[in-house]
């Protein structure tokens, strides 16, 4: 009973995650891209730069 309830909770969690991902996949795309909110950035100098993004597979 207890084990069953724990499994049921885990199952519900996975289903909720699946629903969230499906929702993002179907309704949050703009031209196929999941996109951050557009924000205005300003610099008085010569450039705007991002931080270093480290990608190491």
């Amino acid at each position: 009973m207890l084990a069953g309830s724990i499994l049921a909770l885990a199952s519900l969690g996975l289903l909720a995650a699946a629903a969230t991902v499906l929702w993002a996949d179907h309704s949050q795309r703009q031209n196929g891209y999941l996109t951050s909110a557009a924000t205005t950035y300003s610099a008085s100098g010569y450039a705007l730069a991002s931080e270093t993004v480290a990608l190491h597979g």
Partner: protein
Amino acid sequence: MTGLACVFAGLVRIRVTATAPGKPVFVAVAPASAARSYLSGVAYTSVTSLGNRATTIAHTGAVRPRPPATAAIWAAQAAGAGTRALVWTVRDGDWMAIAMNPDGSAGVSVRADVGAQFPALAALALELLVTGVLLAVPAMALIVVPANNRPPARHCSLLRVRELVDARQGNQPRSSDVRAVVGRTETGRSAAARNGTYLIGVDAGCQQWSKGSPMRYMLNGFLLVIPLLLFDAAFASRLPAAYQAAQWNDVPALVALPEGVLRVGTMLLTLLLPISAAGPAQRFGAVLYAAGLVAYVTAWTMQIRWPGSAWSTGTAGFLAPAVTPALWLTGIGLIGMRPLLPHARYLPWVFLGTAAAFLAFHTLHAVLVFRRM
């Protein structure tokens, strides 16, 4: 971003528009070390977090940089007036994105967003879904099977008697009700009347009742949800714009997430509610369910046929599609009041509680969308 995200992201797109209309802009991605040496001695600004609460670090310098297009360091670039989109295939390494004026002059102001394709998202959702469903099978088995292993014979037989009493709309059990229960089993041993209640020692009868035929499990509350799901699927796209994904889904995750979880929970719990018309509560439930269907369909019809009317744009009319499920969900809860399992008498209340919590978040969701209108 980690290595996993690198594989997962697919193409990355950076869209940049100069805030001054018609002004050209240059946007590019370069290896971080090359970008840093290009900018060494130059005054520029680092954006250390994205979004509305973006934070920045200013770097001072006295050097004027070369026009960026003349530096051969960029892995991907885009330049020109209007909105420019840089599309870049993610690769391993340390990277930096830069926005500048194409002529290398000072004073940069842009509106930007970053997007990624995440091409495997649908596959991920499918895997989560399949794992969740696969996990639900042993979960249900573990919850259901122990109950059948120790049948509370007396309680169970009494319930059966009560069903017979309810079926003839009586208040007290008669000996004929008890005989009907005992008579159905071969090992029925004794029946005794005490204080107007019949206590019966019937084991086999309980086994038969609690396990029942597979049909007992097939006839569950989810059947009552299916018509509504089909109705939603058929007509959701015809609802006014405020209910469509672009506007409807724009609510904080703090509301959307519990709403989603509770919606799934409510739907799953209906699977454990038997459809029964045995008692007065069940018949009242059936009436509520029918009334709920009419109210729900009416609420949607008003929105679809007369979207601009005073009713449809008013609070009550706008919230009606979100609130009317209270009627049919309560109906399903009452119809399922008869436990599918002898020990699970509490289940209708678990269901009604989950459904009420779902509706609270669902209504809050609708209120948030409504207040934006």
